[in-house]
């Protein structure tokens, strides 16, 4: 009884997420079937590598969205973090770790600043982050006026391949050991997403602070009247967003072994992150959804673009097809509207 009702509530609350998972499974399956080397570790590694940054940025976007806000600085913070990493992540192993920590700390601190401006400056998140995003890009350009950087090459190779290569690069143990074989094919980027994303987000969601974020997005006044720590939760939301964005930036820097303060790329990431959040079933009004959904949403966006490489579509028609598919994908939820019988429900 309890379990049943809990399950049905869960289904109701996460309908978007489950829909996204099914959609992703279908399109990824078909992609692999069509791909000459489908269902291989090489393809999985390539797909995973390509997805890490956007997945992290989409997760970063989710948290402010749950509050009912938007963070237009996620792409810029990612870029800033990548530029910092491109300067710091090299040298001895200790220096490398130090560089990584500083990169993540910087992005997190930037998120914290966003949160403080939103909470204590009482500025709407969307517009506050539009402005801080410009500042982040400015800082990134100061750090890296032109693209480049010297990120450790081993790190680049080890983190963008399978566990086997990781072990081999650092000579941890014999990568061909039989006990290792069952997991050796797993792409490191996939593990990074799981460890940093899931192991940070899922527990956080279960804390009072995490739940407060949902409560604020759902009904801020009620959350306040109920004695929830509104300010702290908002600051935490942006801070965690900054952390995820900087995870994306750090990986991007390692993956490309360089930093690039590219304004258009930052903007594209921000916009794609919003699309991913929506595809993942999080309501832009706040209060419903979660970062796991956005992870899936980001993957959906990526897999859609994979198709252009295996299908023969006129290159000049590709942007149009891409646009139409995106529009169609985000419009999927619109079928709900046709079923709404009480028009007042449309206005929430």
């Amino acid at each position, binding site marked *: 009884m309890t379990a049943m009702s809990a399950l049905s509530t869960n289904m109701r609350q996460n309908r978007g997420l489950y829909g996204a998972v099914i959609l992703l499974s279908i399109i990824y399956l078909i992609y692999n079937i069509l*791909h*000459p*080397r489908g269902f*291989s570790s*090489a*393809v999985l590694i*390539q*797909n995973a*590598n*390509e*997805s*890490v*940054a*956007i997945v992290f940025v989409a997760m970063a976007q989710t948290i402010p969205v749950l509050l009912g806000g938007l963070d237009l600085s996620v792409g810029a913070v990612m870029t800033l973090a990548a530029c910092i990493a491109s300067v710091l992540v090299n040298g001895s192993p200790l220096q490398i770790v130090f560089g990584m920590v500083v990169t993540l700390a910087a992005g997190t601190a930037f998120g914290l600043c966003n949160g403080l401006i939103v909470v204590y400056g009482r500025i709407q998140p969307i517009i506050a982050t539009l402005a801080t995003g410009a500042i982040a890009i400015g800082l990134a*350009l100061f750090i*890296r*006026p*032109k*693209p*480049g*950087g010297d990120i450790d*090459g081993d790190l*680049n*190779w080890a983190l*963008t391949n399978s566990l086997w290569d990781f072990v081999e690069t650092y000579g941890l143990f014999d990568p061909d050991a039989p006990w290792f074989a069952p997991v050796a094919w797993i792409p490191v980027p996939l593990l990074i997403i799981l460890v940093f994303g899931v192991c940070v987000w899922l527990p956080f969601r279960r804390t009072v602070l995490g739940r407060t974020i949902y409560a604020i997005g759902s009904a801020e006044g009620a959350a306040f009247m109920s004695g929830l720590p509104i300010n702290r939760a908002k600051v935490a939301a942006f801070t965690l967003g900054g952390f995820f964005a900087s995870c994306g930036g750090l990986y*991007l820097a390692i*993956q*490309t*072994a*360089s930093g*690039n*303060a*590219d*304004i*258009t*790329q930052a903007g*594209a*990431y921000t916009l794609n992150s919003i699309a991913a959040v929506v595809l993942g079933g999080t309501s832009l009004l706040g209060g419903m959804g979660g970062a796991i959904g956005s992870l899936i949403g980001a993957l959906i966006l*990526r897999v859609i*673009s*994979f198709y*252009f*490489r*295996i299908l*023969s579509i006129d*290159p*000049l028609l*590709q*942007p149009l097809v891409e646009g139409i598919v995106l529009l169609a994908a985000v419009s999927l939820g619109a079928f709900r509207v046709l079923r709404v019988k009480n028009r007042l429900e449309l206005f929430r």
Partner: protein
Amino acid sequence: PEVVSGPGADPSCFAPWNADTKYLQWPAQDGPYRIAVVNGFVGNTWRIQMIKTAKAFAEDPAIKDKIAEFKVVSTGTDAPAQLGAIEDFINQGFDAIVTIAVSPDGFDRVIRLADRENVVLVPFDNVLDTDAVMQVNEDQTEMGRQWAQFIIDELAAQGKTGGKILEVRGLAGNSVDRDRSAAIHETFDATGGDWEIVEVVGNWDDGTAQKVTADAIAVHGQFDAIAVQGGTTGAVQALMDAGHPMVPIAGESENGFRKLVAEHADDGLKGISIGQSPGLVAIAMKAAVSALEGNVMPQLISVPLPVATYDELEDGLNYWSDLPDNFFTVNEFPPCGVNISGPAIMAQSEADVN
């Protein structure tokens, strides 16, 4: 590939960058080949023209039989997506991948993978800061130098050895912008004249270039000459709208710019037009095929700068008064057998449509 010694095949087309350029050789493979073009951004005329040139060249009798499969994808400005697409094509077993890099760095991994699979990776236009792959480009530094030299010479002809120059720069942070600008400054400095160079950022875009040029004229009054990295038509338009006297101008190879120069050269709009050509893609494709055939290739292929000065302009030959302004005039490279002229590209697709 193996590093070998030169000379390379077909030097009139695949000219080495300079005397120090290495030569590379891949094991010869049997054709026909599978070739992919991985483009980044797609929302401007240059890129569209590039894609059309690539498609047209793939159908060219000279090369058609050597190509079994030809694919073009545009990944946007997203570095991971571009790297992913390249890697995907390597996974799919493509033989050569031609690309415009979204960033001069960050290709270490795909270069390594390409080498492992003997895939020929050919960056062109926006090339990489590495000598591990074969690349095709025009010499940006040389371009900046020629622009500056032209202005210096034109002003010298007017008896000026110094003056106020407006430099309209490109996209901030881009290496092409950096190289061209540095060369311009060096060349002016080298004359020892009294030059004041006012820099504005035009983003290689006609509208922005026009706006910042107009602003600069409003604030600074008059310039002795103008150097524009891109969006030249816009800059000239601003000049004319402001009633600024016609001055020597160095710019890109947009059709609109050449039209204006042809029309107003006699009024003083003495221009030099050098451009990065969308036709580079064809040379890159041809180089890829040549490498796959086992020929020795220069690591860095220098494509001659397509220069046209005001006195050389000829309608229907190096500019077309009936074609759009946005069109990039230089498209063919006869020494390479790349003979897809601008109007030909346009005509071809109109036929497609009908």
